[in-house]
């Protein structure tokens, strides 16, 4: 089992954002996490990747207990992620963005920069990896562009590439198609499938049910911080509680 979450809980003051969630991610699979706004999906991601410390519960990644570890340690263990608001190094060129994302796999320190022996090799390696990753996400042509000037879809693609360039075993994608035009969605779906093909497991938060249904091996549905359903897309879409959560109790159709 790649990632295992056991009765994970997070409280903010009085609010229980994530409430006793159990969940598993198998190596090389795609898990979709869905739920209405405020259901605790992003909080769950932040707990998994270390941005937030859980109130209680346990997270193990490849058998290593990572509960409460710092984000950079979790990232080095092999968990990459993107952010909902597509966080990038906006002022820097794409290739530098990629290089930074690859930095954690290099050893060179300050003294290596002065006497660049080991650094030379690593720099070449970083450049090659960055080029490959840009190629993979389809941005090879704009390696010199400034990240902040990209259109939304390219930003999302860059973010995915940056999550991948550090050779993770699992990537968490927070709304990879949020704010993206309808025409660009299929490309993103394809990209996610390609990630799976590389043997990397994917956890994806998405609102577009249609997309998640087609993509995921398993789906976890959250509402008010609780897991209300879990299973294959078919199992989940028939669940009455899911329909209720999505349409609201007032929906009488």
């Amino acid at each position: 089992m790649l990632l295992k979450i056991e009765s994970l809980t997070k409280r903010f003051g009085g609010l229980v954002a994530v409430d006793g969630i159990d969940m598993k991610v198998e190596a090389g699979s795609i898990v979709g996490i869905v739920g209405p706004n405020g259901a605790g999906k992003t909080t769950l991601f932040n707990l998994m990747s270390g941005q937030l410390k859980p109130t209680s519960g346990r997270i193990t990644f490849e058998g290593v207990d990572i509960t409460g570890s710092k984000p950079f340690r979790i990232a080095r263990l092999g968990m990459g992620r993107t952010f909902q608001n597509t966080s990038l190094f906006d002022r820097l060129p794409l290739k530098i963005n990629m290089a930074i994302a690859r930095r954690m796999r290099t050893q060179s320190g300050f003294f290596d920069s002065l006497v660049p022996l080991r650094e030379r090799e690593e720099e070449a390696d970083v450049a090659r990896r960055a080029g490959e990753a840009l190629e993979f996400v389809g941005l090879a042509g704009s390696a010199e562009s400034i990240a902040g000037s990209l259109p939304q879809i390219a930003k999302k693609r860059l973010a995915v590439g940056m999550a991948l360039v550090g050779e993770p075993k699992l990537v968490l994608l927070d709304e990879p198609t949020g704010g993206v035009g309808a025409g660009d969605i299929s490309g993103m779906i394809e990209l996610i499938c390609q990630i799976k093909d590389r043997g990397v497991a994917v956890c994806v938060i998405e609102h577009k049910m249609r997309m998640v249904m087609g993509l995921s091996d398993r789906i976890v549905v959250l509402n008010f911080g609780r897991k209300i359903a879990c299973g294959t897309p078919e199992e989940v879409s028939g669940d009455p509680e899911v329909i209720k959560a999505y349409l609201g109790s007032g929906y009488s159709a």
Partner: protein
Amino acid sequence: MLDSVSLEVMSGELVCLLGANGAGKSTLMRTIAGLVKPSGGTIILDCEDITGLKAERIVRRGVALCPENRHLFPRLPVKKNLSLGAYAKHFNVKVMEECYDFAYELFPVLRERGEQLAGTLSGGEQQMLAIARALMSKPQLLLLDEPSLGLAPLVVESIREKIVQIVAAGTTVLLSEQNAGIALSISSRGYVMESGRVVLEGDSESLGSDPEVKKAYLGI
């Protein structure tokens, strides 16, 4: 963020705005309220052009926004939050009393919590306070941005009822919601937004039965 959006709200109506995260609903609301300047187009209120006016002027004209993350004054008591809601209007004591009464009638819990600091209220109470504060300026048009966000089902239900009451009391409401079921069940008309554009509009019943809407929100 917004791409030539056109929409109309008639006096006394409850119109809902549907769409996923990042579809541009909040930006639209904030633009109407004057927090964001539009790069083109016009906003007309009661036959008067209010495009590009500052937020404080728009409140004075009778448009109040109850924003997505509420933006209460957390270290001020509930009552002070309410009284600040009427800041722009310079009401006299009598009118203020009426406003308080209306707010308390709608949300009796706020009367009990009058001296409590807004930041210490529960999520549902905070949402109620945010709506009540917006109502304090006696707006003609109330913009409600995602009032059900992160609230428990029971609370959502009660908020839904309150919105109906507010409309019944004569205030026009533009409601933005992800929770399509709730929104469509109480509104007369609706717009569906996607990527900063309005892609669908119509009366609520037809929207509710539209296969596209069902698909978009349920994936069924």
